[in-house]
């Protein structure tokens, strides 16, 4: 008799809000092999994009992902600007970075909170979500929405942020910073958190390179990869910030990368508030020719890549994108090698997965 058996987990899952199905081959409590089945929430969005005009697609792409929503419309607009040869105004470049970093803080805090939830540390979960709520308030006050900011448009930004609101953002960041610092301290030192995260879900640097993972998952395994640094866009070339890299290769390293990145985002938000120049926020659209172009940005989860092909009409001939999670799923096979069944949810959460954007 074989000593292994298969254990189904999902598609409706306690740790994730989205459906993904794991087929675990287990030997006692130990996972020996992971097979992943997805495709439950394929929405056919790429086909939809070719049936809408360029402006309508800004709204569509913002709905690819919830936590990275701004990064999608941002990258989509960049790809359209590249294909049409639009140069966006300086003020818009700063305002785009501002919205992007506000979203990054909220996204990283959400993932960190869910980690506490999976560990069973309910009070910490509540606390992190409460701190995150301040960023949600910022989004609601400045952009009018708590999730999809609808800030980007082709040629610039839709929402001009006035001096009063910039002051408000600065005040909120000042209020949040000590609170996030406290949270970082808990994740770095609390024995209950460390017992579940330190040395767990290992992704060695060589495997991370081989699988081409991106974002905090790659940076937690010691790979220097950050589109904001590698091919700077918008206002990033003029702003000072560090790219956070850790070499622990475990869940803990990935969490610390995210938490430390929040402080870099605070730095960026402050610099944007201080330095944003006056002027127009949009540039006019040019004639649409037959051409192709790419664009890439660093979303909270890693590199987002867009490809657009125009055919002279206002509807794209092809619009294709690749989300960071798409690259990171396969790393779970390495991370879960010989882990305990009880850690599967926690390891899955450490790649900050997004199913709906993977399947589009």
């Amino acid at each position: 008799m074989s000593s292994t058996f298969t254990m189904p987990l999902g598609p409706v899952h306690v740790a994730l809000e989205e459906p993904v199905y794991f087929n675990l081959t287990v030997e006692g409590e130990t996972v020996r092999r992971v097979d992943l089945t997805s495709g439950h929430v394929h929405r056919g969005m790429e086909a939809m994009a070719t049936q809408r005009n360029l402006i309508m697609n800004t709204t569509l792409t913002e709905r690819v992902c919830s936590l990275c929503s701004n990064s999608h419309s941002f990258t989509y607009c960049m790809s359209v600007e590249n294909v049409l040869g639009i140069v966006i105004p300086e003020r818009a470049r700063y305002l785009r970075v501002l919205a992007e970093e506000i979203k990054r803080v909220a996204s990283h805090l959400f993932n960190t909170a869910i980690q506490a939830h999976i560990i069973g540390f309910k009070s910490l979960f509540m606390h992190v979500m409460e701190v995150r709520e301040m960023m949600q308030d910022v989004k609601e006050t400045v952009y009018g929405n708590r999730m999809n900011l609808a800030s980007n448009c082709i040629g610039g930004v839709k929402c001009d942020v006035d001096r009063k609101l910039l002051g408000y953002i600065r005040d909120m960041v000042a209020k949040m910073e000590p609170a996030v610092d406290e949270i970082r301290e808990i994740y770095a030192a609390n024995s209950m958190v460390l017992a579940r995260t330190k040395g767990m879900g290992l992704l060695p640097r060589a495997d991370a390179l081989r699988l081409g993972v991106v974002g905090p998952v790659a940076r937690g395994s010691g790979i220097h990869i950050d589109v904001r640094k590698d091919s700077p866009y918008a206002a990033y070339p003029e702003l000072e910030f560090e790219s956070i890299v850790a070499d622990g290769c475990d869940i803990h390293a990935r969490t610390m990368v995210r938490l430390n990145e929040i402080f870099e985002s605070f730095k960026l938000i402050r610099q944007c508030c201080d330095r944003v120049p006056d002027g127009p926020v949009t540039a006019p659209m040019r004639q649409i020719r037959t051409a192709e172009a790419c664009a890439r940005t660093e979303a909270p989860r890693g590199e987002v890549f867009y490809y657009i092909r125009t055919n002279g009409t206002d509807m794209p001939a092809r619009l294709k994108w690749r989300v960071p999670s798409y690259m990171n799923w396969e790393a779970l096979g390495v991370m879960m090698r010989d882990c305990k069944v009880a850690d599967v949810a926690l390891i899955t959460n450490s790649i900050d997965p997004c199913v709906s954007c993977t399947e589009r």
Partner: protein
Amino acid sequence: MQDIIPGDARIIEGITPCCTESDAIHHSIDTYGNAFHWFRLDTPRLLTQAAAVLHTAGARLAMVTAYNRRQLSEPMQEICYHFEAKGTVYNLTVTLNGQWPTVPSITPLFANADWHEREMMELYGIQVTDHPNPRRLFLDEELDAGILNEAVPLSIMMNGACTTDLWERILKDKEKRP
């Protein structure tokens, strides 16, 4: 003023022999000075050779796009492979032949091509030869490859919603099965 477009000479020189047609190579730059290099390969078979050049230079596969130049419902005609090395994007475009679009697999070189190639097989009906793991990614095994790319006339869709024709056909098909 002539802008200087940055790029890795080893990669560009390595891929150039695979693109002999006129206008097969062009280079572009965005407003932030980030470079994009575009190569159109002579045949899909050359993909392995060009990908090997990129692999040796330490490039990373970022995305693969299959598309066609005419109607949504027709077979895919071109595939563009997007690679990134040191902040620069290298795009390899291959033209597929007619009704039986086939490309060699690059998964042996780039492990992360796995999902992209499986997606091409099932969503766009492209044959990928020598793929080490040709299982379904999103679609169920029972569905035909490339089915989502087919345009279904509205009248047939409405049949499913307001008549019993579709269900009778499914039941008949079920009886036929051993």
